Structure formats: C-alpha cells, structure tokens
C-alpha cells in the first residue's frame, strides 16, 4: 500500500461512515460482556433488519465508553445518546423509538451528566466510537495518518523534536520525559534496537490500559511504529497480561490487519521502513511490569529486576538498546504528531502536559474509566465526575497509584493530579488507579491488604523487599490479633523508610507507601487498634469476638 492508497482508504471509509443516518455503538469490552453485551449487539442487528433500516443505521461492536458500572452501554450517534444497562428487549425499543421515530428514550439514558463534562478524551478519542476489530474504522477516523506524515515528510530527528516539544512524560509511573528517553535510545550504539510496549497492568484496581487495548488497539500500534521510526528500531513486543484475554484477542486481530495492509512489516507504506511486532504474554507476576523485569520475562526467564545501570536504553533486550514505554504513552504519540508538540504542551499543566486515564473505582456512585487533563483535582474526580459517595456515606480516603500508591485523606482532596504534587504527599501517579474509600473501611486493614499484595508479588531477590515487607506483614498480623505495641508504629515507619531507600527496584521502593501514608494521615486508627484493640470501621477484631 502506498501513502496515497491510505488517504483514499480513509476517504472511502469516512464516506461510508457518513452514509448512515444513525450509528449504534454497542460496548463489548470486558466490563460489559459479562452483562450480555454480545446478546444486545445481536438484538440490535436483528432489530434493524426486522425494521428494514439497515441502510440508515449501522450497528457496531465497540470498545469501552467508560461507564463500566452500568453495562452493557450503548451509544447512539449523532448526539452521543448513552443508554445504560441495555437488554436485548431494550434494543428493539431503542430501534423503534430512537432510530425510526427519532425520539431518544429518556428513561433509559445514563443519568450522571457531569461524568463527561470534566473529562477530556484524547487517548480515548476513539473508545466507544470505532470497531476495534476493524482497522478501516480506525483509518476513517484519521488513523495511521500520523505514521504517514512521519514517513513521508519528517526525519526521525524531527519526530523526536516534536515529542520533546510536547513535554509528554511516561505514563507508566515515574514520569520520565518521553522525548529524552527516545533521544537516549536513538543515540545508543548497537543493533537491532527494540521497543517494548508495556501492557502488564498488574496494579489491582486499574484497568485503563486494558480498556485502551480493547477499544483502540491501533492507536498503540501506530504509536509504536512512530517511535520505531524515530529511534531506528526494527522489532517490537507488546507485553500483555495473560489475565486480559479480550485485549489479547483484540491486539492479535489488529496486528493481523495492520500486517495485511502493510502498515506493519517490511517496506511499510512502500518506504524503506521495516518494523515487526509480536505479542508476549505475561503469566501472573506484578513485578514483570518493572522495566528491567519485563526484559527478563520476554527473554523467557524469571521476572527479577536487574541493577541499573546499565539502563535498558543502552543495554536492554538481549543486551541491545531498548525503548520501554507504557501503552498509554504510545497512544499519545499519533495525536502529538498530528496536532503538534506545542498544541499538546498547552493541555494540562506547564510541567505536566496532556491528559491521564484513570480507573475510578471503590465506593463511588459513577465508577468507570475516565480521562482528565493533568492538574484536575481529586475533588473534581471524586465529586463531579464520580458523582460522590453512595448512600451519603462519609468520604475517608482516596488511594492513588495502585498498591504502591498512597492513601490520601480529605485534607488532600484539592490536590491537583500531576507527578510532583502526588509524590510530595507520599502517593504516586502509578499506572492510574483511583480507589475511593468511605468510613466503612479501616485504614489499618487497607494498609495491610496492600502489604499482603506486595509480599505476594515481591520477586524475592533483594533483602529489604523480600524480608522487610514480610516483617511489616507480621507486625500488622500482631496488631490485628490485639497484640500490637505502641512501638510497632515506630518500627513500621523505620522498616518502611528502609525498604523504600534500599530496595532494588520500583516495586520495593514504592511498596511501603500505603503503610507510610496511613501512618502519616490516619495515625489515630493505628493508636485505636493498638491501645484499645478497637476498629471504628468494624472491620478488624471480628474473628476474635466470634472465636
């Protein structure tokens, strides 16, 4: 396929899309499938046939709209009418009323209007709008035009400059400048060079990357291709959790289609650029998401981190220069190329440009997948987008950044979301999880839960993480048995600081965050547990009373 063919294809597909008066998008991602999304899809297809409106109305399988708690979700275009908890019976009604008579059924529409108001969907631009199994849908929305622009009119250096100008920072957690990382790998000597797209989203409570892969797989692939062109890589791997079967299927299909259109492979768009992509499956190890452990895992070894230096940028997969990038970072790339780095830098905050996807869960009225500009406050996320806490219960804390993030109290809820602000209060951006906790949860119990998680997921290589976390766990167990001592709080803090400073990799270095932040913000609960053997939330000490 030549560049001009891609343009023609895009025009043709866009015309086709516009030829329909209505488009019914049925969300068929992991959140909606268990609630019968497939049946709803079939019901819509059958209904438009029965009513004879196949020429006016297109029914499409799509990825996630974001409102995962009210699935199956269905969006009717034009107007983006979002129907919630749709059943096959509803489907017929919607076709009859909305498509034929032109009157949306108000009683079935999603009720929280503010859910979308504060969001800005760049990465999720196509989520819920295109069929992820159909590459033409992506192309019709301007997909692969950024790749074409790079290959036909930009030098690799110009591409890196554009990414640098955007100020984009890695979305995997640490927030390293993406353009800088690319420069390192581009300059590194050694061939071939590799790219790893990290989709090992192991943080419990986070599903942003999975949703992205299920909704818009080609955005990830296009981002990888552009990165490969910029740094001179020949081979890429998408490392994905085996626990995400639908995302795996979606990516496989997308890769096959991109291969058959010669958008991946050799002489891409009839230029001299070659790049092939393989999928690699994880196997249930949280630590494999760490950037040196992911290398070991792709090489077929135990996923234990390696000491840095050498950094993967100079010595990564099989000792070759390797760019490791979170999939969300990659999905930003096509937008940056198409709109320019300066445009992107204008979104978010000066130090932290762009948007960030978050999975919003826990005790919240409207959980789901959201995307907000950097600098949005936690209050806006919890109370406006998430519509507050169910049953009028009291907000207690918000967990930001997964199991190694921090538990932030009400005083911190006006904090803007950006890398520096979160780090300052003891939390991290992580891969983007926000879990809301109300007064029914106990913070000591919560800190123990995260510690248990990290104990299970520690690779065991270094002493602070392997032994230190186990000791923290034992101290928690002692407190829960009613045998805690006041000195334990001090011991927890000392251990926590040691583990944070002495551990080999990011897992250990961040694992004590929940313990340290709960000690900092919820010390009264620890004191209560230790001195009074009491838990105000009513979570702990229950077994003791029964037994």
């Amino acid at each position: 396929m030549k560049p001009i063919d891609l343009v023609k294809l895009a025009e043709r597909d866009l015309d086709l899309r516009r030829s329909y008066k209505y488009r019914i998008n049925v969300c068929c991602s992991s959140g909606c499938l268990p609630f019968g999304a497939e049946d709803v899809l079939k019901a819509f297809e059958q209904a438009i046939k029965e009513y004879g409106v196949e020429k006016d109305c297109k029914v499409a399988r799509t990825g996630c709209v974001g409102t995962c708690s009210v699935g199956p979700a269905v969006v009717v275009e034009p107007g983006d009418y979002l129907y919630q908890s749709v059943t096959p019976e509803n489907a017929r009604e919607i076709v009859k009323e909305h498509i034929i008579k032109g009157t949306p059924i108000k009683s079935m529409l999603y009720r929280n209007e503010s859910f979308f108001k504060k969001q800005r969907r760049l990465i999720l631009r196509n989520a819920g709008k295109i069929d992820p199994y159909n590459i033409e849908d992506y192309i019709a929305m301007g997909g692969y035009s950024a790749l074409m622009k790079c290959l036909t009119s930009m030098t690799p250096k110009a591409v890196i400059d554009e990414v640098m100008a955007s100020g984009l920072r890695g979305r995997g957690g640490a927030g390293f400048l993406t353009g800088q990382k690319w420069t390192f790998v581009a300059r590194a000597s050694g061939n071939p060079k590799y790219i790893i797209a990290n989709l090992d989203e192991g943080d419990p409570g986070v599903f942003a990357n999975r949703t992205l892969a299920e909704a818009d797989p080609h955005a990830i692939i296009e981002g990888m291709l552009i990165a490969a062109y910029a740094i001179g890589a020949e081979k890429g791997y998408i490392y994905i959790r085996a626990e995400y079967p639908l995302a795996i299927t979606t990516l496989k299909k997308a890769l096959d289609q991109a291969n058959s259109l010669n958008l991946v492979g050799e002489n891409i768009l009839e230029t001299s650029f070659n790049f092939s992509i393989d999928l690699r499956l994880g196997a249930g190890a949280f630590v494999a998401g760490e950037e040196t452990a992911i290398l070991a895992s792709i090489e077929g070894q135990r996923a234990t981190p390696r000491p840095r230096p050498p950094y993967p940028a100079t010595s990564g997969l099989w000792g070759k220069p390797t760019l490791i990038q979170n999939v969300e970072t990659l999905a930003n790339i096509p937008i940056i190329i198409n709109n320019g780095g300066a445009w992107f830098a204008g979104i978010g905050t000066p130090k932290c440009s762009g948007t960030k996807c978050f999975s919003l869960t826990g005790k919240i009225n409207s959980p789901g997948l959201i995307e907000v500009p950097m600098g949005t406050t936690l209050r806006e996320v919890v109370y406006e987008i998430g519509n507050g806490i169910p049953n009028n219960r009291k907000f207690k804390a918000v967990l930001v950044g997964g199991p190694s993030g921090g538990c932030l109290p009400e005083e911190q809820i006006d904090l803007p979301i950006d890398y520096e602000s979160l780090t300052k209060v003891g939390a991290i951006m992580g891969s983007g999880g926000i879990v809301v906790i109300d007064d029914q949860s106990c913070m000591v119990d919560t800190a123990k839960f995260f510690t248990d998680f990290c104990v299970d997921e520690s690779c065991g290589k270094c002493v602070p993480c392997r032994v230190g976390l186990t000791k923290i766990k034992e101290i928690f167990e002692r407190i829960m048995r009613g045998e805690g001592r006041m000195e334990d709080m001090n011991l927890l803090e000392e251990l926590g600081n040691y583990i944070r400073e002495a551990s080999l990799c990011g897992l250990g270095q961040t694992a004590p965050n929940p313990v340290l932040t709960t000690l900092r913000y919820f010390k009264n609960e620890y004191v209560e547990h230790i001195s009074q053997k009491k838990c105000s939330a009513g979570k702990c000490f229950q077994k003791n009373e029964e037994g």
Partner: protein
Amino acid sequence: MGIGVIKLKINEQEVISREGDTILKAAKEHGITIPTLCDLDGLSNFGGCRLCLVEVKGSPKLFPACTTPVSNGMEVITDSERLKKYRKMAIELILSERIHVCSVCVANNNCELQDLANKLGVDHVNFKRDWNTHDLDTTHEFLVIDRNRCILCTRCIRVCDEVEGVHVLDLKNRGKDTEVIIDLDDQWGVSKICTSCRKCAKVCPVGAIYVEGQPISQTRDKKIAEFVLTRRQS
C-alpha cells in the same frame, strides 16, 4: 589523563580507577572495606543483599557499590549513620528470616553472616523470628543443603552455572517462598547432572551447603570462582 582512567573520591580520599569498574572494586583496590554478602569475585553481580549500599554526594538515593560503575568526579561515602543503621537492619532482617542459631551451625566461627553481625554491632534482633522449618536434603553422598540456613544470596547457583557450567541449581517460587532447588526440585541424591564438584559448598557464605564430615574451614574456598575463571581466560 589516559582514556579509561576515572578519578573519584571515596570517603574524602582521592582514588584512581578504571572505566567500567564498580565502586566496590575501586574501594577494595584502595583498601576500603564495604560490607557484602551476595557479591563474590569471579561471579556475575547479583545486587540482592543491599549491604554494600553507599551514598553518592549530590543524590538522595543510595547506590549498590557492587553494581554501580565509577564515574569522574564522583564522591562516594561508604559509611554514615544512615548506612550503619540500614546495614544493621539488613543483617537483622536476614537473621530473622530463617533459623539462624550459631551454636548448632556447622559454619559457626566460619560464617560471613556471623562475622558481619559482629562487626556491625548487631546484638539483638528487633523483628519476630521465623521458626518455620525448610527442607533439609542429605541424600547426596557427601553434599548437604540445609535450607533453614539459606540466605538466598545465589552464590551457589551462580558458581554452578557460570563456573562449573552445569546449572543443576536454581531458584523456585518467588518472594518469601523462594528456595534453592536441585533440578526439578528433586532430591540431590538422584541428580544425574550434578558433578559433585563441591563448588557450591566452597562459596556458601553461611552453613546452608556443606560437605558432610568435613570441617567447614577446610571446605570453604571463596577464591575458587575467580581462580577457575582466570585460568580459563589465560
């Protein structure tokens, strides 16, 4: 100054080293001791025990001396109050992880862990000690592995793979459940691949792998790996 020569300071002392060398090597060459447990000359770097962490001026982070390369102008501090505290903590954690009772250990008075505990002034263990028993395997003709004393430094695994070249030993599981295994977690006595070379017993820093009936002072040979590799190269 010639290519590859690196000038740095360790504990205020001017030190000349070579490009690519680690802080640990540079320190050792100038008679500066940094405590280590998993490191052994001749074997690949592991970086697991975290005893050799040092401070580098200008960075709040700690750096493992065994894997961090030297660079020009670097100012290293190998001993500070923070480092002392953390090293003691590391030893305490290792001592509390499994069953370490010196008086009934074959390695008593010939043990790197015991020596370090003495040297760093560890006179008690602040943490709950774990008395759960781990597998003891006496099925080999003369080699014994007592996992109750293992500190997971992986010296035995590395020497078996990198020097002897048979890779009989490896680790199973992960985290706190990690154990050194023989073949498919089989008994040592039935291993067809083990060459009974004793190198694992020679390099073990504690009393986890030893030769039955032989005084540990005669078994241990911490220079074996470097010795074999130097011979092999020349």
